[in-house]
């Protein structure tokens, strides 16, 4: 392959890679501190009643609802529920 082809291919791949790395519209960058709190709360509170379920068991919008349901049953503070949602959705 000629140098020019290589350069062209590399540039096209770089463009593609950059395009896929761009966050989707509306995505806020995950807050590492909230992720850490959410992971800890997910591990601590979900296991109080049942086996801990993996993040990929539900879609993001389903976690929004499901965690609110669990917030009621588990009497979780709102911020703890939000942390768990953020963790589950970022790990999904």
């Amino acid at each position: 392959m000629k140098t020019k082809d290589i350069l062209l291919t590399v540039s096209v791949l770089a463009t593609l890679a950059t395009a896929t790395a761009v966050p989707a519209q509306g995505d806020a960058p995950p807050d590492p501190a909230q992720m850490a709190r959410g992971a800890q709360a997910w591990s601590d509170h979900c296991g109080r009643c049942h086996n801990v379920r993996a993040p990929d068991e539900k879609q993001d919008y389903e976690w929004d609802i499901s965690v609110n349901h669990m917030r009621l049953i588990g009497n979780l503070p709102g911020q703890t529920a939000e942390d768990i949602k953020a963790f589950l959705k970022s790990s999904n």
Partner: protein
Amino acid sequence: MDKQLAIRSPAIIMVMTALAVLLGASTAYAAPPDPSLEERIETLERELLILKQELQGAQQAEGRVEKLETELAGTQQKLAEVDKEARAEERAATKFHLAGYAAAGFEASDNGAGEDSFTAGSFNPIFHFQYNDNILFESELEFEVSEDGETETELEYSSLNWFATDYLAVKLGKWLSPIGQFQERMHPAWINKLPNAPAGFGHGGVQPASDVGVQLRGGVPVLQQGLFTYVVAVGNGPRVGGHGLELEGFGSDDNSNKSVGGRLGFLPVPFLEFGVSYLTAEVTGEEADMGPVTDGDYDLWGADFAFTRGPWDFRGEYLNSELDSFFGLAEVGDMTTNLIPATEWEAWYLQLAYQLSGFTNAWFLQNLELVGRYGEFDIDGFNEFEEHGNEERFTAGINYLIAPSVIAKLAWESREFDEPGRKDEGRLLGQFAFGF
């Protein structure tokens, strides 16, 4: 004319001679080939060919790049559309989610009744509708097949919930009893680690099943890792009559006297929980053709704990309730009311479970869970009530976790009854449960 030709002829001859000499000379110079010149020409021709090929290749590459860029733009547009579509539910103000659980299994008893059976178990769909992250409607239905083959349907709960603040939610409608742990949190088949409920914690036991009313509930962080939880509930309350004491949610209050109860929980650390519960209500005796009817005070209290760390799950509950004496219908079919004596219900259990993943990663073994539970249920007072209770129950089981919410259970249960004439029995219980 001839003279002119004569004069010119020598000149012409000379010119032609000179041209001939010159031509001969040039022919003489071209004749011997020059190898270096040919090589250079060949080299130049090859280089020209290569340049043509490179130019052609570059033109083709540019064409491919343009094509790729066009395809990339199209793909990005499609990606944006797919992303938008995929997040449509998440962006919507009103969201819907269908969850629930189902179970099926078998029971075999050594009581000689010859009623070993496969059981259809139950199908419990749970509907969630959420508005703007602060309003949640949730409802659970239960479909079961009775022993007679009929499909039974029950509305387990149906409530509107408003998340007022981070620490307060308001629940309105029909809800599962917040008393203790089992009824509200542990009873779904995929959560319950054994195929049935502890003695006294199922239908007809001391554990209230549900109520219709309003709850205030939530949790407040305390200490460094601690959590204080609370539920305060006001409902239509239980009823009493020919069918006994009914601790289920009724759509109306038969005596305009509301039940008041709830539970306070404290978790000093996330894996250790202590709770106390209380419920007070006034029930009115059922009318008969003759005789007086009076109210009876009903009071329940309970305590529970749970230790859930790593592969260990250790929990227990104690519930005690009392119903004072009152006048009312004692049994369906009676013509007159009677004085129903004061009755006390008491139930407790301890349950220990351990998942083998705590010490092995071996295939199959790591998905096993061992469970043991011992409990007692006692009723002291009115004979009609006592017939449904007084049991010591020990259950040992082994579960295989296909997934966190997909569980195959196998258990052996020993039951000892106080009821006169009722034989003790051992039961083999199997259940397949799926939470979704």
